[in-house]
């Protein structure tokens, strides 16, 4: 109980798993053995407990991890730990998590990114094979970026990478996922499309060839879009845009970007697409067109 009270107090403003909220024992075990809990209680929990006072029944694991890497992440982020955002469908803690949800933790999915890969694959509209794991995108030790996103998720280390800049009204404190991981809490400012294209790096070529929808393009003044239509969209179903100049939406700087149409993790729809009315893709397109 004491630990539960202390946990929310030790978070660094920003993202979880960073600074004081990066607790080594959340994920690592030194000897692959724990004969009792920190309180002396026995047996120790085999399911995640905030702060790391738990140990899986399997192991010891490589890198002193309590479980295999992705499975370790999912151990907390599958809905079983109320203090952590659930990223595996179906999600219950909010109706529409900003990042969406993975359909599966182990099998390939047509509804979004796959987890559990063991070998690199070439992503859709990508040029090089990438090994996709939770850690491909998120730095497990935190890095100060939004959601601890790695600048180079492809792992190519080519170029300077991309930093995703997002304004958050409410930051994670270890007990408030329903307030943090929702679109209404976020104002996307810059970097998202470039970050996605670190893996999907053939996308700009397709845009240049006119075969794919452009990204980072202002809605206002666009020949094929209607500012008036966009400005009149019901705010409760409005898709996300990037707003480099000001966080206000709608406003003249609003730009279509990857997350206008896709959920980062996955959605109930093919290719992680967002159906604004929850029924049809057309409803998403019609917000600008």
């Amino acid at each position: 109980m004491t630990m539960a009270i202390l946990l929310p107090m030790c978070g660094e403003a920003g993202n979880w798993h960073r600074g004081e909220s990066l607790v080594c024992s959340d994920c690592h075990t030194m000897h692959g053995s724990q004969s009792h809990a920190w309180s002396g209680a026995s047996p120790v929990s085999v399911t995640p407990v905030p702060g790391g006072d738990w140990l899986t029944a399997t192991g010891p694991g490589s890198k002193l991890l309590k479980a295999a890497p992705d499975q370790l992440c999912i151990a907390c982020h599958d809905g079983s730990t109320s203090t952590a955002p659930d990223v595996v469908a179906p999600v219950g803690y909010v109706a529409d998590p900003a990042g969406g949800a993975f359909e599966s933790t182990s099998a390939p999915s047509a509804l979004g990114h796959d987890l559990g890969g063991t070998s690199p694959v070439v992503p859709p509209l990508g040029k090089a094979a990438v090994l996709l794991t939770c850690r491909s995108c998120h730095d497990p030790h935190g890095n100060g970026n939004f959601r601890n996103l790695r600048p180079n998720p492809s792992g190519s280390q080519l170029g300077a990478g991309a930093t995703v800049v997002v304004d958050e009204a409410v930051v994670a404190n270890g007990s408030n996922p329903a307030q943090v991981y929702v679109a209404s809490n976020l104002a996307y400012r810059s970097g998202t499309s470039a970050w996605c294209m670190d893996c999907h790096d053939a996308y700009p070529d397709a845009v240049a060839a006119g075969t794919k929808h452009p990204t980072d393009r202002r809605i206002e003044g666009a020949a094929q879009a209607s500012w008036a239509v966009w400005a009149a969209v019901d705010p409760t179903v409005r898709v996300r845009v990037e707003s480099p100049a000001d966080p206000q939406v709608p406003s003249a700087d609003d730009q279509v970007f990857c997350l206008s149409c896709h959920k980062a993790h996955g959605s109930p729809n093919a290719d992680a697409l967002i159906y604004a009315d929850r029924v049809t893709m057309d409803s998403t397109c019609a917000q600008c067109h």
Partner: protein
Amino acid sequence: MKKLMLAAAVTFAASAYAGEWHTGTTNLCTDCHTMHFSMQHGFAGGAVGTTPAPNGDWMGATGPNNFLLKLPANELCKTCHDGQTFAPDVVTANFNATPTQGRSAGALNEAASATPYESWKGHTLGSTTVPPGFAPARVGLSTTWYDPAGGLECINCHTQHGMAGAYRNLGPRSLGANVPTYVISPTNDATRDVWINIPAGYLANSGSAATFNPYYDSASVSYNRNDRTVGTTTTSNGLDAMCATCHGNFHGGPTDTEISNAQTLGGLDGFIRHPTSGITIGASGAAGYGGHSSLSRYTGAVTKVKVYSDAAGYTDASPGCVSCHKAHGNQNPFGLVFLSRNATSVGEEGGYASGQTQNLMQGYRNLCGQCHSQGN
């Protein structure tokens, strides 16, 4: 009474042995044994006390006992080493003045010990629990050398009749030449496992905390790196070999299968348990297998945990049991040393930096953060 005490002190000084007590000429049979569990008078006539007196001129209150002991084994040790002014207190809170950085081994507990020394905060006298990681064969010992059913006794770790050259009389004797050795001197002897940095010629049993505290002060004790293989386990210090007699599966380095899958998983990422030997903090690749750690981070720490090292700049530093744990225990779970690299003060539990949240999670961060920069 004063005359008696003075006489005893003089006798003690005359019989003192440079180094550990309970060894050589300071291993006094009558300290612990009684032939008939009967003593009608003291060595100088007069009444016999039931509390320890110098040279064994006392008698236990309960007995007779096995091995002709004046009290059952743990009770006998505690008679002097728990709550007495003339000997170091090693059970729960220190009855005497605390050394500057706490007792180097910390504090034992018992099943009934109260907060803050509950039984999950280090070694528990009398515990019948099988030691975690119990695999004595890994250091060449018989699997029956320690029987948990008999309960943990002081003498499971400390040889009751002393062992010349053995640090704190640590055993077991079956470790032979691999028991931890020591030197008492302002100058280190890197061939020994432990360096007690106090003036040479320290006489044990000096009789008060003011004189014996430096000997047991964590601030005075450091550990050299002496790589060797004991049984089939690599170790970088005899102290680790001693710990491995009970916790064998938790010991070793890159070539030990209970510690590393380096051969199958590709070296640096191959550790499945934290290494306790054979690696060098911050050294990348096969040169040291310390690539996940940072030597500059360790050397940059104002307040450091113990490592096994005798090289300038800690360039040979290997972590070991005592880097993270107090041998006896302390007020933290598992006897862990939660020491920030910028602690405002250092005690048996470690120490927090100014402004830090003082809880277990921060404690773990502080400990790991001594050598690891990830997330810091």
